[in-house]
C-alpha cells in the first residue's frame, strides 16, 4: 500500500469527520483536510486534519543466517483543530479498519501551542 493509496482509503473512511483546508483571509476552501506530507504553509486547517507520511518507515529484523524481515509502516497523524473533537471517533474507525495498527496519543498543550493529536502506525 502506498501513501497515496492510503490517502484515498482514509478519505473515504473518514469523509464525514474530516475538516477542511482554506487559504487567505477570505478563507478560500482548498478541499478536505487530508494529504500526503505537509500542507503548503499558507493552508489553514479547521476540524480534523489527517497527514500521511510521504515515505514508509522501514525496520529490518535479522532472522536466521542471511534472512531478514523488512517491515514497512505508514505513519498517519490525526490532528484536531478546534471543537468539537472528532479525534476519538476517527481513531476508532482507523483502528477497526487496520487492526494491526498501533496508536499513540499526544495530548494538546495550550502553553506549548501543541494541538491534540493521535499518531497511528499502519503496517503496509
Amino acid at each position, binding site marked *: 500500500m502506498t501513501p497515496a493509496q492510503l490517502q484515498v482509503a482514509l478519505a473515504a473512511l473518514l469523509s464525514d469527520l474530516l475538516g477542511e483546508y482554506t487559504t487567505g483571509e477570505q478563507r478560500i476552501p482548498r478541499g478536505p483536510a487530508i494529504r500526503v506530507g*505537509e*500542507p503548503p*504553509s499558507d*493552508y*489553514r*486547517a479547521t476540524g480534523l*486534519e489527517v*497527514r500521511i507520511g510521504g515515505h514508509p518507515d522501514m*525496520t529490518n529484523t535479522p532472522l536466521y543466517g542471511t534472512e531478514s524481515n523488512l517491515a514497512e509502516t505508514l505513519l498517519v*497523524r490525526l*490532528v484536531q483543530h478546534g471543537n468539537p473533537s472528532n479525534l476519538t471517533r476517527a481513531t476508532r474507525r482507523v483502528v477497526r479498519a487496520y487492526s494491526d495498527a498501533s496508536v*499513540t*496519543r*499526544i*495530548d494538546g*498543550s495550550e*502553553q*506549548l*501551542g*501543541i*494541538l491534540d*493529536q493521535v*499518531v497511528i502506525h499502519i503496517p503496509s
Partner: protein
Amino acid sequence: MPDFEVHFNTVQLLGAAQAAFKDANMLLGIELQKSITKNRWSWPNEPSPRDIIDKGQLRDSYSPTPMPPDMYEHSWGTEYAMAVHEGAVFKDGHSMPSRPWVSATLREYDFAGAYSKLAKLELAKVKDPP
C-alpha cells in the same frame, strides 16, 4: 550414606538474575540518554543532524525506577516528551519532526545480549551454601 538431599539454590540464583536485570536496565538507561544527546536527528533547519537538547529539560527529566522484583521503569517527566518522540503539529500550523529516541535505542541496543553477559557474571559469584 545412602540418603541425601539436593537443594535448589533459589534465593541466590534469583538474586543473581535480578541483579543482572537491574544492571542491564542501567546500561539501557545510559544508551537512551545518549540517544538524546547525540547529533543523529535530522532537522529542517541547520544544524542538521542535531541532538534533542534545547534547555536540557527533557534530558534532565529522565527518571529510572527499579520496581523489584521484576520491573524497571524508564520515564521522562516533561509535558512535551511524547510530542518530541512522535513529532507534533502546532496551533500555528507548523510541525516538529519526530525524534523517537526510545524506539530507536530499543531497536539498536541488544538488551538480551547485555543481560546475558551480566547474568553470567552474577551467577559466577553464587557460591555453595555452607
